[in-house]
């Protein structure tokens, strides 16, 4: 599968890489059953960045877990290129919302980042180390490699989780509120890093965020979720030009308009309720 993945990847924009088709998810059975997702369909194209926004408890994490093949959906299918996803496919990385629990406390930060690289063919020990340190440096964690996750602050742990995913150099990167615990400045830096890596590696990125400004700044398209059970309320295309820039892009009227539009979509169900 790995090889075909890489081949198709070169095909360029316009090919759907990841697609959800009528995805539904119900937790529990019988009396306790609760349908969280109802009929979700969308596509993510090659090299695209898509942000998902929606109220807390809407099912964004659930959706990401279904997309990554970690959890079977109750209905509908997920396809990564030509293959139906049933298990986590190769070339896909996930940054979990609960970052602190996703790091192994018995390993140093560097070992945590290196862990997924151990299976990579043709990667020497030194090369692995190199890649881990580069990834750590790119999230602003130079010199923390020898520490243990529990010796780091929350925001630092979150960045370790991001570095782990980046070092893996996946074709598709799923991130669940990856910048929630870092300060404004670091957040801006990480947003820009997202743009950089996306370009450098032609990564396809699907990112859940609560920060609407962030979603507009990062995305080529923003998927807004709402309703019970949750469905796609709108897919907002973001046609802001690249390269984007924290100061200039965010001060354009187009940005403000998009921001207001998405904000309005999120508020809507709350007001009607």
């Amino acid at each position, binding site marked *: 599968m790995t090889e075909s993945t890489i081949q198709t990847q070169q095909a360029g924009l316009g090919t759907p890489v990841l697609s959800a088709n009528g995805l539904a998810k119900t937790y529990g059975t019988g009396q306790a059953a609760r349908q969280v997702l109802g009929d979700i369909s969308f596509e993510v194209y090659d090299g695209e960045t898509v942000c998902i926004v929606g109220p807390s408890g809407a099912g964004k994490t659930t959706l990401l877990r279904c997309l990554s093949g970690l959890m*079977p959906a109750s209905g509908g299918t997920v396809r990564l290129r030509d293959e139906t996803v049933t298990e986590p496919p190769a070339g896909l990385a996930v940054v979990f919302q609960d970052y602190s629990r996703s790091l192994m406390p018995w390993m140093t930060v560097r070992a945590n980042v290196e862990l997924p690289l151990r299976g990579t063919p043709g990667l020497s020990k030194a090369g692995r180390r190199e890649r881990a340190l580069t990834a750590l440096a790119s999230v602003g964690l130079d010199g923390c490699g020898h520490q243990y996750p529990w010796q780091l602050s929350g925001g630092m742990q979150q960045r370790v989780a991001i570095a782990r995913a980046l070092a893996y150099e996946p074709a598709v990167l799923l991130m669940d509120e990856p910048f929630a615990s870092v300060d404004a400045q670091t957040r801006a830096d990480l947003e820009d890093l997202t743009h950089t890596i996306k370009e450098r590696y032609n990564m396809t990125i699907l990112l859940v965020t609560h920060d609407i400004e962030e979603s507009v700044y990062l995305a080529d398209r923003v998927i807004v979720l709402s309703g019970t059970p949750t469905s796609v309320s709108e897919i907002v295309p973001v046609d802001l030009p690249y390269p984007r820039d924290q100061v200039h892009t965010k001060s354009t009227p187009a940005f403000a308009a998009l921001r207001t539009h998405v904000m309005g979509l999120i508020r809507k169900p709350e007001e009607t309720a």
Partner: protein
Amino acid sequence: MSQTFARLGQLLGEAGFWAAFGQTMAGWILGVLIAVGLGLPVGMLLGRIGLLYRSSRLMVDFLRTIPSVAVIPLVTLLFGATLEMKVMLVAFGSFWPFMLQVAYGVQDTDKVLVDTVRSFRLSTGRAAWYVFSPSALPFAVTGLRIAAVTGLLLTISSEILGSAPGLGLELALAQTGGDLSLTYAYIVFIGLLGVALNLVLNASSRRVLFWHASVRGDAA
């Protein structure tokens, strides 16, 4: 083999067998109950209070390596071949593994939970009941499974070596009497007791550990 099971079937119809069974169960259950009743608070104390843990671990390591089986004659001397003797021995032998597991389990409590307990100033009793016990429960359940079987083995051993009435004594009688199929019938029955115990413990541990990763299975 089939002869063994035939003998076992025959045994199940005898009143004397059930009397012996009752005597074994009494010693076993009482002993394990005492071990658990003492092991829980002691284990929690040792697990929570570092000073106590370090002060006592030499004694604990020493005491728990005393072979219970070897002191059966001494215990018999003090208590006679009685239920008390069995209970003493079983409680002593199964106390250590259970207590130790509880202490480990308590030490394993998540740091953030400990901080939560401290910041809300939960009273010692409440913290023990609502937080440290449940948190140590996965370890304690494993400890109980070890302790319960240790208890069964010690009950039987004390009946065999200390001649207290019970299945073990019957087993020893069968052995000295040279009745091989009867001997094995008893052994098989004792093994089945272990299986039954496990069924009970499994079912109840699934119930009390419903929230735990091993039972809940995070996905789906």
